[in-house]
């Protein structure tokens, strides 16, 4: 005869059953999220729920910063102020020169009939914290769709590109850094215009130019800037400096390693640049075009009958 516990010992369904239930629920969510991307609705609700907690987590940091700022010496502030003034003067000179050049470029572009480059909106943001995920290189910034940022935007700091805004929530957004393993950035060598794709190197904090042929014209110290051909990043933003080139005739590709210029892993403030004009779709390749043509031809014959 089976022994059943008295009712006051009953703890609901057996833990193993619960584990199976919650485990399969988690697995279903994982598959939905990773394979099909259907979980974005749930995610945005949960992110909203986590938002006040994230804000609370920022308080102690802000407090420490406030206190240390309060006690920072007068002289240091003065010297910093002077330095910033000098920098501003320099920058305003540059800005004037840039405006003149931009006006000239617009005129020239109009002359040759090229599409005018649209002015990008930039939204300043603050890095809240680095994503607590050792598998990816991400930071969370304090601007979301409520502030007008959108997924796909480039994120820069005062010296260059730090990454791309990959997921925009209501009040915060996730920025995938250049150094993330799955984050390709279209770049070109400033010296000769050679195009390449920089992939993140993961924990090394460096970038790697993949698929560069063994005799590609890349040297140590070459500066890499965004090429802008994908329409995501504006062209000409500094990305990285080449620090190592290994050419081995036994491999098809050269191994090119570059160090990011911007404070990818350290900066506190960033600028979100809204994506530029949508580029025309990539032209279809030969096989799909042929298929479409034959389908059209078949349709024409059936219609004619």
């Amino acid at each position, binding site marked *: 005869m089976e022994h059943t516990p008295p009712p006051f010992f009953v*703890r609901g369904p057996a*833990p*193993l059953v*619960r*584990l199976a*239930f*919650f*485990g399969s*629920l*988690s*697995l*279903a*969510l*994982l598959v*939905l*999220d*990773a394979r099909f991307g259907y*979980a974005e609705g*749930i*995610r945005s609700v*949960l*992110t909203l*729920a*986590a938002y006040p*907690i*994230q804000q*609370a*987590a*920022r308080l*102690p*940091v802000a407090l420490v910063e406030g206190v240390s700022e309060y006690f920072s010496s007068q002289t240091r502030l003065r010297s910093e102020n002077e330095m910033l003034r000098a920098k501003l003067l320099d920058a305003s000179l540059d800005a004037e020169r840039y405006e003149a050049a931009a006006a000239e470029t617009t005129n020239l572009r109009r002359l040759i009939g090229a599409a005018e480059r649209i002015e990008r909106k930039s939204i300043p943001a603050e890095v*809240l*914290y*680095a*994503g*607590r*995920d*050792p*598998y*990816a290189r*991400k930071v*969370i910034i304090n601007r979301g769709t409520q502030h007008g940022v959108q997924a796909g935007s480039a994120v820069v700091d005062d010296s260059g590109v730090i990454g791309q805004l990959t*997921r925009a929530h209501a009040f915060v957004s*996730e920025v995938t850094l250049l150094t993330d*393993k799955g984050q390709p950035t279209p770049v070109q060598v400033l010296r000769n215009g050679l195009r390449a794709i920089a992939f993140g190197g*993961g*924990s090394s904090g460096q970038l790697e130019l993949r698929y560069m042929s063994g005799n590609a014209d890349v040297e140590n110290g070459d500066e890499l800037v965004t090429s802008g051909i994908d329409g995501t990043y504006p062209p000409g933003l500094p990305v990285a400096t080449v620090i190592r080139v290994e050419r081995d005739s036994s491999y098809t590709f050269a191994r090119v390693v570059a160090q990011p210029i911007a404070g990818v892993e350290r900066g506190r403030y960033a600028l979100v640049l809204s994506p530029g004009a949508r580029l025309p779709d990539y032209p279809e390749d030969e096989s799909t075009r042929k298929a479409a043509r034959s389908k059209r031809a078949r349709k024409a014959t059936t219609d004619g009958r």
Partner: protein
Amino acid sequence: MAADRSRHLLLPVRTGTIVASFVVALVLNFLPWPDVKLAPDFVALTLAFWCVHQPRRVGLGTGWLLGLLVDAGNGVLLGQHALAYSALAFGALALSRRILWFDTWGQALHVLLLLEGAKAVALGVRLAAGDAFPGWTLFAGPAVGALLWPAVVWLLLLPQRRPPALDEPRAR
């Protein structure tokens, strides 16, 4: 035995205490840690504590919901922490009767096993999703967490302690 004896002296736990402890743990988790691999997972630690001490009130459901919150807050795959915390809660529930018979460092050893197990589950999920292995330091965080276990036990049992004047503990 020490832990078991002190249990008789405890006041019943308030739901507010449990909720507040989880909120504090989430805040600690979202702090900007310089090295995420070495930072202990406070939510996992708190979850393990409540599963061991209050197995009727905190269990897999709580762990699952907390996991989803952590997933969304960190921007990782939805379900990664949910799965890991469910497994952690299951292990803690299964071991809850046993763990309380050990002194705090003996408990910490059990908790180390649970935390490492949860980490391994998360690792498995990420590897299956196609991420690269981030290095063995990944398992240092749970070790730090287990070292914090005595402090966590002391802190979380504090609201349940009676004032010493009412109930003098027996001499050792």
